[in-house]
């Protein structure tokens, strides 16, 4: 037992920080109904601000701590409160994308100002040690643990005893009624966001000295609080904190020699400890009774699409086709970039199918693409089978995995599907990417292009990928017009109404997820042929790192809703456009602008499109059927 104690101490300290971060997350989720995916990013930003104030501006540590946690983080909370207030009537996809946009903006901003390379942060706490029961404990560890426990206790007490806590609990039950009783519910929500963000900041600041200032890692570490929050069912503060402690201790014990010696498979799973919170998150969501996680229902906004006359549509399509044929000749030095763009049309078609057609959110699309790419590589490069078999295998392997991830989608909806897929994407990256079944220990897989006609030339392969892109869009259009499309539309509008009509909601959902996964898998297979290999890491927006699932989804929020235009435009801005910028910080600027655009699209998008559409239907009518006066005089259908 005594040789396990040091690990228990480490685990308790880490776990208390997960619990601390999770408590802030639960607070804002309970009071506003908006799940803050940017919670970790706020923590990361606070740690960087502290570093900047103390180490660059030379402020005393106590003042830097106060300004970072007491001023900067709550101010960030105000921004989030504003965003959340614009989302009360929004669909699940918009709710998820809005805070993911904040993650991207913060992430890009931090990397831009402080660089991508991580650097250490000296803790402001004393680092001497003392000994308890033969275990050396750092004063910083003890103080960290004490701060976390006290902060969560304080929050629980505030919630139970104070007037603000009473109002917060009232808002959770019925904000409108609180308003009628004479208390401004918006004010209560703003205060909750400020406190929740201060908690995120505090946890970020306390974690940073242990892992260094690394924007991505800090964001993900506080995201690990999601696991603890899941244990607390996203509502109970106490259980959430205990869940955090349990996860922290369990993760630390995985490093104890006594345990690694006796449990053989741990050697093969080096990242199991960091993945543990996501494993917990995923398992809690998958294995709980349905109905345990109730989500406030949201209305889907219905908009009359702007329809252009058929002739105009055909002319535009012809122009686009002509343009596409010219691309390899006009931009011959960039043909690989455009090829990659064409591949992303397939990937975006898969996302579009899920997000726009069935109002489900997937935050693991990168995982499906990676699975498709590596399967393709095994089949063609490893086993020497023909190219076509590889593509088929990529799609076929993705289908059962899609079905597996869709299990939570069947029983839980919207937000919780997003959380489960986020957990799944990170799990695959941390536990499976470096295994032989995927990228292997060198993180790279090779593949071939089809050895047929001239398709293995750069130009030929571009046309091939473009053909796949067009086919994927055609598939989406076809699905939209088919029986499945109508079911999906009905599903997005009202699952209950669909069920009362006798259609099986669950089978429809699983079906969509599988088709989407298969398309993403095909995209992965095509991706290998672009450069002949595919890697498990990278910094570009197209790299197959799990974080990019968020980036890809964000793009889809501001490229419109047309099944033809949206995937093409999304692929263009994600892959092709950045290649025209030579600035070394292009990736960061891209992340920031995608984030800001996603936030804007999800908070103001409906208002803007309502404003744009106010005149559009009448206008489209006029093009189709002639001016109103003529129609009235001739007695045509008005």
């Amino acid at each position, binding site marked *: 037992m005594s040789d396990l104690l040091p690990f228990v101490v480490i685990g308790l300290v880490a776990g208390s920080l997960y619990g601390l971060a999770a408590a802030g997350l639960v607070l804002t989720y309970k009071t506003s109904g908006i799940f803050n995916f940017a919670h970790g990013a706020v923590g990361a930003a606070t740690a960087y601000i502290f570093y900047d104030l103390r180490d660059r501006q030379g402020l005393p540590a106590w003042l830097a701590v106060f300004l970072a946690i007491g001023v900067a983080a709550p101010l960030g909370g105000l921004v989030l409160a504003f965003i959340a207030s614009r989302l009360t009537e929004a669909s699940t996809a918009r709710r998820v994308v809005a805070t993911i946009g904040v993650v991207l903006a913060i992430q890009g901003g931090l990397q831009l100002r402080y660089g991508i390379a991580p650097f250490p942060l000296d803790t402001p706490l004393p680092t001497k040690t003392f000994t308890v029961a033969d275990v050396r404990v750092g004063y910083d560890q003890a103080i960290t643990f004490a701060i976390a426990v006290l902060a969560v206790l304080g929050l629980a007490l505030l919630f139970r005893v104070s007037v603000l806590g*009473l*109002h917060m609990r*009232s808002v959770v*039950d*019925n904000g409108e009624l609180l308003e*009628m*009783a004479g208390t401004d519910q918006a004010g209560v929500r703003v205060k909750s966001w400020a406190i929740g963000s201060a908690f995120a900041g505090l946890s970020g600041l306390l974690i940073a000295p242990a892992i260094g200032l690394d924007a991505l890692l800090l964001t993900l570490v506080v995201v690990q609080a999601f696991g603890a929050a899941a244990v607390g069912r996203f509502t109970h503060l106490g259980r959430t904190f205990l869940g955090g402690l349990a996860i922290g201790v369990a993760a630390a014990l995985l490093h104890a020699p006594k345990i690694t010696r006796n449990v053989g498979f741990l050697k093969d799973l080096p990242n199991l400890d960091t993945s543990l919170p996501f494993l917990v998150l995923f398992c809690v969501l998958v294995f709980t009774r349905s109905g345990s996680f109730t989500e406030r229902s949201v209305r889907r906004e219905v908009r009359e699409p702007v329809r252009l006359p058929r002739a105009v549509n055909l002319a535009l399509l012809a122009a686009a086709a002509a343009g596409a044929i010219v691309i390899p000749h006009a931009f011959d030095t960039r043909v690989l970039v455009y090829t990659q763009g064409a591949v992303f049309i397939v990937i975006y078609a898969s996302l579009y199918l899920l997000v726009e057609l069935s109002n489900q959110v997937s935050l693991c699309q990168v995982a499906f693409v990676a699975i498709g790419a590596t399967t393709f590589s095994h089949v063609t490069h490893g086993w020497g089978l023909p190219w076509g078999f590889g593509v088929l295998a990529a799609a076929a392997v993705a289908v059962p995995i899609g079905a597996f991830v869709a299990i939570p989608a069947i029983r839980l909806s919207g937000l919780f599907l997003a959380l489960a897929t986020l957990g799944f994407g990170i799990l695959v990256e941390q536990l499976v990417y470096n295994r032989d079944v995927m990228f292997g220990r060198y993180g790279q897989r090779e593949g071939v292009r089809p050895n047929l006609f001239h398709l293995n030339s750069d130009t030929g392969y571009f046309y091939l990928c473009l053909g796949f892109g067009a086919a994927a869009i055609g598939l989406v259009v076809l699905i939209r017009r088919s029986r499945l499309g109508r079911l999906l539309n009905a599903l997005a509008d009202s699952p209950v109404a669909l069920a009362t009509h006798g259609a099986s909601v669950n089978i429809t959902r699983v079906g969509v997820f599988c088709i989407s996964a298969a398309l993403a898998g095909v995209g992965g297979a095509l991706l290998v042929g672009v450069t002949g290999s595919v890697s498990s890491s990278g910094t570009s927006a197209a790299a197959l790192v799990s974080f990019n699932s968020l980036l890809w989804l964000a793009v889809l929020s501001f490229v419109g809703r047309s099944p033809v235009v949206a995937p093409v435009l999304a692929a263009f801005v994600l892959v092709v456009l950045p290649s025209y910028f030579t600035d070394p910080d292009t990736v960061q600027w891209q992340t920031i602008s995608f984030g800001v655009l996603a936030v804007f699209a999800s908070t103001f998008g409906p208002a803007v499109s309502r404003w744009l559409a106010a005149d559009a239907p009448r206008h489209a009518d006029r093009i189709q059927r002639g001016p109103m006066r003529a129609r009235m005089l001739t007695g045509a259908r008005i």
Partner: protein
Amino acid sequence: MSLVLRDVHAGYGGTPVLRGVDLTVPAGRVVALLGPNGAGKTTLLRTCSGLLHPTAGTISLGGRDVTHARPHALAGRGLCHIPENRAVFPGLTVRDNLRVMVGGRLRPNTLDLATDAFPILGRRLDQLAGTMSGGEQQMLALTRAYLTGPRYVLLDEVSMGLAPIVVDQIFDFLHRLAARGAALLLVEQYVTKALALADMVYLLNKGVVDFAGEPGELDADALAARYLGAA
């Protein structure tokens, strides 16, 4: 000193519900608002209390324009809206519900007032409101109109779905509320009970005022016909 609506239009997301309503609730008087399902009674109350803002027309309270005031501000000006369907916080104890009603902190006389209004509440103080019976929840909801001493009380179907004996208790309470000098705007399904209490009555149909006058002027047969939509 009245609650006055002038040519109020309101609705939800482009669907009009109220189409030019003129209505006055004089201080200290009881006004019954009757009408068939879908007439716009609830919408009218929601518009009065600021939960919904009129698309046209004005609302004034005691001579001040409150057309665009928020609900909490109106509550501060002495307007109390008891919405339909048991307006309590189910996850809070009865005591905490009472605290919210009086702005956060119990005053010395709060509990006395509450038990004076409905004695049963005194025995339920530490129970979660959501675990009480429907009648007890409605009593708790109504207590808000008693604790804060509002000058105008909007009551939306407060007797709906309750046992007859509880309905009697609730109407006793409404009589006491009126006797204390509060003006009541009463939406009710127990038409005869409502008319017995009311000084004035408005009939609302399809978003417009069909009839305004004293209860005695209203012919029971015509009223029934209106309710069944035959008028």
